[in-house]
């Protein structure tokens, strides 16, 4: 007889707010359950985790656990992993799911050592074969796909953002989250969180369903006159920032996020947080609009799985057009504002 899955989901949260991708794990869990049956447990840790655990019932958790002890107030990998591993052992879970976030990936790795298992990171699809989960994951920056199987339990998997759909939240499903005792005392923890500096406001790139990106091409608008007193490099950055304002306007009409190529980041036009690509973020929005980006292979690595790609480039030979559903050969400085205006009218904003 095939054994049923006992799935534990780690809900990644920050100061009482679950990252939306956490709920997508319940969609992934459902796809496992559909093939092998089983139950779904959830755990959230840190300040605000009780409310988050409560919310997990809406998405289909049968039991939800939390620990808001002071030693877990801020995210620290060691006590968090210890807490998750302890619960996984006590509950005898066979599958442990994390979102592919900075915290999720690292916790999965630490728990794999605690639990004598391995990790299958960044899965985009799951199937069941001979009672084991087969995870499909992009390798070589998405140039290839690999199937992976973990031969021991728990099978630890991190799920790529937007690979699965979150089930609709059903507020009628509820329960009482179970409070856990802290598994590590403050004295045993070798790190201390001193504080935070906030990211730039705006939609998070990886969660975004629409991304408008700018590349080196945003910097060369000849019709702009930079303020006097700037040297050549400063004038270039100033021009590029005016260019990125056009990108930002379009993104904002579409409720999307702003991305960038590495060339734009390295030239100092926009912070690294916005970089899409092999050494930046991997994104797969429904709509990706690339403006003044040539489409180098390392950039493609970060955006190739976007649903609909639109390219605006003045060079008809730019490789980005090979990926694009729609392409416009022309000057981004006139096309992007026109597109913003046209969307604004059409979407009634």
């Amino acid at each position, binding site marked *: 007889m095939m054994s049923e899955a006992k799935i534990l989901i780690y809900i990644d949260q920050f100061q009482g707010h679950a990252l939306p991708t956490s709920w997508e794990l319940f969609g992934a869990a459902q796809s496992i359950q559909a093939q092998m049956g089983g139950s779904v447990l959830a755990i959230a840790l840190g300040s605000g985790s009780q409310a988050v655990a409560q919310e997990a019932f809406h998405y289909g958790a049968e039991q939800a656990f939390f620990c808001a002890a002071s030693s877990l107030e801020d995210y620290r990998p060691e006590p968090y992993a210890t807490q998750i591993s302890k619960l996984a052992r006590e509950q005898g879970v066979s599958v442990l799911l994390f979102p592919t976030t900075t915290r999720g990936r690292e916790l999965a790795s630490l728990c794999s050592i605690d639990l004598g298992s391995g990790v299958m990171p960044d899965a985009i699809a799951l199937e069941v074969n001979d009672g084991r989960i087969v995870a499909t994951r992009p390798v070589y920056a998405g140039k290839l796909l690999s199937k992976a199987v973990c031969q021991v339990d728990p099978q630890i998997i991190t799920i790529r953002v937007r690979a699965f759909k979150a089930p609709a939240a059903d507020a009628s499903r509820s329960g009482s989250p179970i409070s856990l005792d802290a598994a590590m005392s403050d004295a045993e923890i*070798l790190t201390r969180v001193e504080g935070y500096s906030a*990211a730039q406001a705006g939609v998070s790139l990886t969660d975004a369903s629409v991304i408008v990106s700018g590349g080196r091409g945003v910097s060369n608008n000849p019709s702009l006159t930079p303020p006097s007193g700037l040297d050549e490099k400063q004038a270039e950055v100033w021009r590029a920032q005016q260019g990125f304002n056009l990108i930002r306007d379009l993104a904002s009409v579409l409720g999307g996020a702003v991305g960038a190529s590495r060339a734009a980041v390295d030239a100092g036009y926009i912070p690294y947080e916005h970089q899409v690509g092999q*050494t930046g973020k991997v994104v797969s929005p429904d709509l990706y609009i690339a403006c003044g980006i040539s489409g180098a292979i*390392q950039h493609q690595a970060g955006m190739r799985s976007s649903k609909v790609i639109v390219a605006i480039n003045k060079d008809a030979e730019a490789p980005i057009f090979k990926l694009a559903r729609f392409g416009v050969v022309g000057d981004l400085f006139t096309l992007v504002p026109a597109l913003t205006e*046209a969307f604004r009218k*059409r979407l009634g904003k």
Partner: protein
Amino acid sequence: MKSVVCIKQVPDSAAKVVVEGGQVTWGDAPLVLNPWDEYAVEAALVQNEAHGGEVIAISMGGESAKEALKTALAMGCHQAILISDAALVGADSQAIARVLAAAIKKIGDVDLAFFGRQAIDGDMGVTYAQTARLLGWPVLSYVSVIHEVDAAARKVKVERSIEEGRQIVESKLPAVLSVSKDIGEPRYPSFMGIRKASRAEIPTWSLSDLGIEPPASVVRWPEIMNPPTREITTEMISGESPQEIAEKLVEKILEEKVL
């Protein structure tokens, strides 16, 4: 201060990688030092310039990985060690982490072990945390800034990139550090460095040198394949004016029902 940098050799990021007859191939593209590990080498060298001591690059892999170690030496690392053993072919990440942890212990008195964010072949991004857990050291990942290392007080203070911005963390030493691109552009190997590296003797450690049994792998890759080819028909939009093009494009995008 004594630092170790863990580096991997991978096919160049621009390589055209395909599966042919079940085998991964990248044509005549070169094997290079994993780009993320260049940042780790850079971070280790910057700390070394500030605090003295030595930086030791280690890599687990085949004989060819010596080339990646030579790049690290040419950049300025003081020593390089290859860990190679026939029993390690096909090892999974946690098995590699067990080997790296054993090597770091054998090197001894290490204050900081630097890692890249991920290796661009397997795209795992797990080995540094697994190694840290095996060593029982704190893991500081996605490190963008190293504010302070105080080897005497056994402390390090870093800024980590997280989804919500930056987290500032102080940690005891020894620690594992995995760096992000913000740490600073990696230096190019100097001419002198390249000459020195080309003459360097790189010792090879086997599992018996490390005093460990071959670690068992638990993750298997039953299949590796080319992604399904996406049939994209590119439709070029043109018109008399930017406004006309924009209006056409908006209608086309709306027809795709992605908004």
